[in-house]
């Protein structure tokens, strides 16, 4: 790059500048960051504002450069060759009138965009240079040399909403309501409970006894409890009858159900 600029300034005529630039470019070919970078450098040899650049001429310059590089057996990356092909196409589009019914962007549009890209790249390079030319922290201006440590103090605040408060209160005042569901079945006797109970009791009941006498103490009064206990005890007795431990009988429909321990094997 530097070679190029140096030679550019010294050049008195464009052709000389171009010639020297071409040589410089070849020397530096690996220093270019892709076809756009190279195009930008080439466009400088036109010594005009990037917005009035001749894209046709630029395309020619580029193609000449590629040919030259090829003749010097310089290995060019594929994207340089793709760009060359595209520029050749662009050149033809710019030079030949568009075929009727042809689709796609016109040569002028493509050329304008290329010019825009070059101008934008150049602008960003100028910006980058300006940025790096600014005063910089630690080089031109400085922060405090001995920063003072800032002690971190952790302070905890607690929050609660009115809702939390009310729910908390409701929770305490209705503790019983808030018991888990299963815990709440104080009016329910399970069949397992009834089974346990009957297994313990049946040994003492040698003769026919009413089922209701097997209900747990106190469960006979409350209708809810009685219902549950009766059902559970009846189910348990069926289970025990099935197991051959007891016998069940009922005189007639709706008459009391009676059970007794089944006679021992020996008796």
């Amino acid at each position, binding site marked *: 790059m530097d070679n190029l600029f140096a030679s550019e300034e010294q050049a008195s005529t464009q052709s000389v500048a171009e010639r020297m630039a071409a040589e410089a470019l070849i020397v530096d070919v690996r220093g270019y960051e892709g076809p756009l970078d190279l195009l930008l450098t080439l466009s400088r040899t036109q010594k005009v504002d990037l917005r009035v650049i001749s894209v046709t001429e630029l395309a020619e310059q580029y193609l000449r450069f590629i040919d030259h590089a090829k003749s010097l057996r310089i290995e060019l990356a594929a994207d340089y060759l793709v760009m060359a092909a595209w520029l050749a196409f662009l050149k033809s589009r710019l030079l030949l009138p568009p075929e009727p019914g042809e689709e796609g962007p016109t040569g002028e549009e493509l050329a304008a965009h290329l010019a825009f890209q070059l101008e934008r790249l150049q602008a960003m390079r100028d910006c980058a240079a300006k940025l790096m030319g*600014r005063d910089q922290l630690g080089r031109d201006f400085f922060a405090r040399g001995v920063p003072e440590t800032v002690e971190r103090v952790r302070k905890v605040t*607690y929050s*609660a909403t009115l809702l939390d408060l009310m729910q908390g209160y409701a929770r305490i005042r209705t503790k019983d309501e808030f018991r888990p569901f299963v815990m709440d079945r104080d009016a329910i006797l399970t069949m397992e409970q009834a089974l346990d109970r009957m297994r313990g009791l049946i040994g003492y009941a040698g003769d026919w006894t009413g089922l209701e006498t097997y209900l747990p103490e106190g469960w006979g009064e409350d209708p809810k409890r009685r219902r549950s206990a009766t059902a559970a005890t009846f189910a348990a007795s069926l289970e025990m009858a099935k197991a051959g431990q007891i016998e069940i009988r009922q005189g007639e429909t709706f008459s009391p159900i009676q059970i007794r321990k089944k006679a021992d094997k020996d008796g």
Partner: protein
Amino acid sequence: MADPHDMATETSAAESVAAEMPAPDENQSLFEAPPMGEQERMVEAILFASTEPVSIKELEDRMPHGCDASEALTYLRKRYEGRGVRVVRVGDCYAMRTAPDLGYLMQKETVETRKLSRAAIETLAIIAYHQPATRAEIEEIRGVSVSRGTVDQLLEMEWIRFGRRRMSPGRPVTFVVTQQFLDHFGLENARDLPGLKELRAAGLLENRPPPGTIPGLPENDEEEDDSVNQSEMFED
């Protein structure tokens, strides 16, 4: 139209305004030291940026030829008198330090918000609904003992305070909620707290057990009578 090159010169011109004082010319400094005000600026910048205290000699070594760092320092020290930053002498050297009375600013408080514990919320709720409430009463209602920490926390938060002592045996202290508590929860009065019925109506309580099946829970809490039109409280 802006040519990128023109642009560059324009902005750099504007930027150079920032650099009010050009570095003294090498040759010029041989004959003439910069004005004292300028020397003071230099000492200020050096002391500010330096990682350790700087001696007069080192200051002068770093400043243009002919500067009088001592004198500049005198002005600088005077300038910083009573400020938040001071020029201090450390042995034979000088340094800038923050004013000692502002040391408390060198703390960064990070505030962490935590949810109040369930125990604290319940204790607070009981005090709010039953105030004045003794610790024994709180424990009776909660069914568990109230830890000292919980009460202390609520006292510290200034959501509860001590009320009058009960005139009962042992003269136990009572707790009541504070104005801060009311402010925090947006209440005018502790009596504005909604009663159980309203809580239930608002869906805050499950409406599960039908009446009559729950032993020991009087439906008409005394608080309920006080809170009449609190339904809007639950609207949002």
